[in-house]
């Protein structure tokens, strides 16, 4: 008998939504000791399926039909009280956002003990250190007395896992538990979940949007699209021989190939020398506060026509460095030379002529467009401010929209009428309206679904070639960097620890941090069907002896 069996689950959306059902006729089973991954893009109904199992559906959503059987009992027939006994004790759940999932006013140990106390498990307090040790947290007795805000994201997620596992549930539901975490932390958490699952023989229902994570952890996979499961099967079968066109499209969209860039030999467009930026946090009227070295001594050179990837985890200072280049942040020290001008020395007025030549694409497509202005105004504003006659600037909007593959009729609409991917295209069109030489892209695809991500990356690459752009590309995702960048600079704690040709950094990383980053790419051992082809052509990164037509790789290593 299977541990969990969901049959024909259908959840209706409120009238007026874009489709009648959030989840439509979903059926799957999960055996003890098995990891089932539900994969899908945002809005595919994967999280709602998990919420339905836990009985956590939002009140506006109604189950139309279907059954959820857990250990032979119909969960949907249970009363609230009976369900409460199941939750936590037999069914554990981990959420996406570890930063908000813990009560900030309770010590970590007390929160775990509370889970045990609620279910009347004896000796709650004594078991806490043991549970914390089980999720590989150092010094459990001391950590149990810590407040949540003192822990890092990865540590908090471990505490959440310890809480979910406290009563040894037979089923663990993990809803994107690693999405908010850095890549190295993500790998640790994935290994931890896999390890505990094997030790205890739990069933794990793992919800994710990332095929790399699937390759890392799943035994079986179910792919969801618009509320339906379109393909299900064993991990290797689905990943290596996908049958449904949607699955194929999703897998093809996973960034997987190495850019076949010939490194640029042109003259430097941008030279960043010894840039430093230190922030003071929490400093009041009477001093105090802490200093954060966001960027400490960064050097790099960007040559005409190339794409330099600035890679690092959150807090590594990559965004601050990019913002120094466009003067959203004033650097404390160092020179930023654009052709022959030191931008770091210019005042606001002196900067103005360079605004046309250096443009930026932002991360969050939902925050980067003014919600109260029409698309045509958003795009034409820049050129108008730079002195282009209004009529001419508005006239060019249609042309720019078709350049980023949007319909010119989009010009008269407001940003909220567009999807994330379309908004990001508008953001790109806004930057391109200035005819820039240098484009700075700050995590332009990290807020997007994987298929949209692939489209935007292709668009950026095509535009770079067509318009001869030079690009500084900031990302935390090494797979994305590998696909689009000709050179890569790895940042850690505000320093560039390694830089070089993409192929060289990926195949023979020199700095230990780069190595650990590369080892943490989820699904690194998995080569998607498309990758295998490109690898044959000598473009993959998996093999050790990939030869590339490189110039002398230069590297900046920081001891």
């Amino acid at each position: 008998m299977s541990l969990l069996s969901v049959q024909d689950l259908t959840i209706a959306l409120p009238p007026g939504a874009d489709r009648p059902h959030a989840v439509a006729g979903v059926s799957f089973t999960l055996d003890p000791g098995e990891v089932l991954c539900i994969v899908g893009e945002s809005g595919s109904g994967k999280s709602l399926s998990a919420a339905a199992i836990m009985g956590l559906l939002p009140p506006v959503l109604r189950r139309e039909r279907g059954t959820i059987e857990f250990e032979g009992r119909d969960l949907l027939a249970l009363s609230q009280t009976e369900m409460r006994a199941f939750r936590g004790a037999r069914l554990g759940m981990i959420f996406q956002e570890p930063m908000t999932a813990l009560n900030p006013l309770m010590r970590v140990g007390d929160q775990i003990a509370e889970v045990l106390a609620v279910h009347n498990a004896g000796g709650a307090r004594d078991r806490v250190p043991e549970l914390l040790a089980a999720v590989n947290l150092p010094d459990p007795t001391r950590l149990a007395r810590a407040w949540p805000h003192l822990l890092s994201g990865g540590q908090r997620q471990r505490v959440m896992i310890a809480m979910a596992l406290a009563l040894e549930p037979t089923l663990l539901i993990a809803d994107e538990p690693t999405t908010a975490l850095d890549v190295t932390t993500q790998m640790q958490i994935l290994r931890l979940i896999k390890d505990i699952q094997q030790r205890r023989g739990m069933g794990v229902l793992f919800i994710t949007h990332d095929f790399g994570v699937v390759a890392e952890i799943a035994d079986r996979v179910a792919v969801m699209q618009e509320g339906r499961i379109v393909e299900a099967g064993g991990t290797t079968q689905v990943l290596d021989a996908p049958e449904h066109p949607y699955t194929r499209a999703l897998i093809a969209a996973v960034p997987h190939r190495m850019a076949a860039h010939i490194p640029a030999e042109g003259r430097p467009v941008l030279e960043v020398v010894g840039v430093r930026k230190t922030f003071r946090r929490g400093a009041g009227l009477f001093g105090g506060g802490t200093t954060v070295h966001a960027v400490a001594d960064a050097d790099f050179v960007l040559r005409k026509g190339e794409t330099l990837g600035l890679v690092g985890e959150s807090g590594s200072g990559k965004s601050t460095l990019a913002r120094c280049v466009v003067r959203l942040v004033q650097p404390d020290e160092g020179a930023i030379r654009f052709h022959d001008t030191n931008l770091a020395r210019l005042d606001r007025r002196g900067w103005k002529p360079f605004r046309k030549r250096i443009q930026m694409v932002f991360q969050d497509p939902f925050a980067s467009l003014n919600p109260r202005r029409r698309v045509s105004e958003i795009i034409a504003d820049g050129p108008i401010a730079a002195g282009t006659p209004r009529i001419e600037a508005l006239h060019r909007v249609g042309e720019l929209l078709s350049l980023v593959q949007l319909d010119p009729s989009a010009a008269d609409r407001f940003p909220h009428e567009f999807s994330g991917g379309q908004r990001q295209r508008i953001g790109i069109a806004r930057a391109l309206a200035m005819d820039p030489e240098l484009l700075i892209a700050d995590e332009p695809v990290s807020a997007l679904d994987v298929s949209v991500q692939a489209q935007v990356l292709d668009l950026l690459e095509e535009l770079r070639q067509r318009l001869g752009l030079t690009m500084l590309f900031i990302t935390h995702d090494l797979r994305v960097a590998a696909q689009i960048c000709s050179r890569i600079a790895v940042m850690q704690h505000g320093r560039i620890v390694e830089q070089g040709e993409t192929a060289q950094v990926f195949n023979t990383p020199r700095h230990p941090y780069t190595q650990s980053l590369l080892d943490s790419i989820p699904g690194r051992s998995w080569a998607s069907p498309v990758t295998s082809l490109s690898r044959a052509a000598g473009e993959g990164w998996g093999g050790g002896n990939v030869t590339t037509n490189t110039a002398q790789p230069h590297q900046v290593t920081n001891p």
Partner: protein
Amino acid sequence: MKLFLRAYARNKGAIAGIIVVLLVCLIAALASWVFPYSPWDMQGAPFQPPGDPDLWLGSDSLGRDVAAGIAYGARVSLLIGAVSTAAALCLGVTLGAIAGYASGALDDAIMRFTEFFQTVPSFILAIVLVAIFSPSLGSIVSAIAVVSWPPVTRVVRAEFLSLRSREFVQAAEVLGHSHTTIIWREILPNALAPVIVLASLMVANAILLESGLSFLGLGDPNLISWGYMIGAGRSVIRLAWWMSVFPGLAIFLTVLALNLVGEGLGDALNPRLARRR
């Protein structure tokens, strides 16, 4: 816009509020047509109880028509409410925008200045100002404006602080827009929603302040107002209750209606909060 109206209409109280406010506006507009005489003139015998076909809300101790007084008083109340709110908004939005956008020392200076005004009890300050500058329409409007701008500054500053770091504002910066363009075109339109809600409550508050001032005899002596009428009827309330009750009702209904409108606007402009209720 249609969406906004639909969200607003979902709040029944807000609909009632807007109807009452429009009614008060109508009364104020038609005052000189319905009562083609000065509210200060004698229209009949003193202390006439309400119900008389000529004096249907009764007359006061000098035989003046209470209904006419309320209609003409509505003009004064609305005028003072609107003008003083407009003046307070101008001052408050400007200072708040500068403080929130500039941050740093300028922000500190403006906020300390604002706090200085907030520590003084507003009604007392208004009395002092009107008493010093002698009661007139101008001095009353200025006094009310002076005591009611600090909350606007705080709200606008908070909005500016959060909007400032949004990516679309940074994008405008990168596109090379000037500070004024960024403030006017990018930030201000997005900061207006809470200000509009606040403004409707400020009108209500201004009407209350004005009534309080005229009740104490600090109203403009040439204009009849609701507060003045209550003040005049106070000493004879046992003899002629209608002299105080009807103007009092007028104040109560108008202020309540404006508050309901404010709540409805808040719901409509911030639909996510409203649905939770």
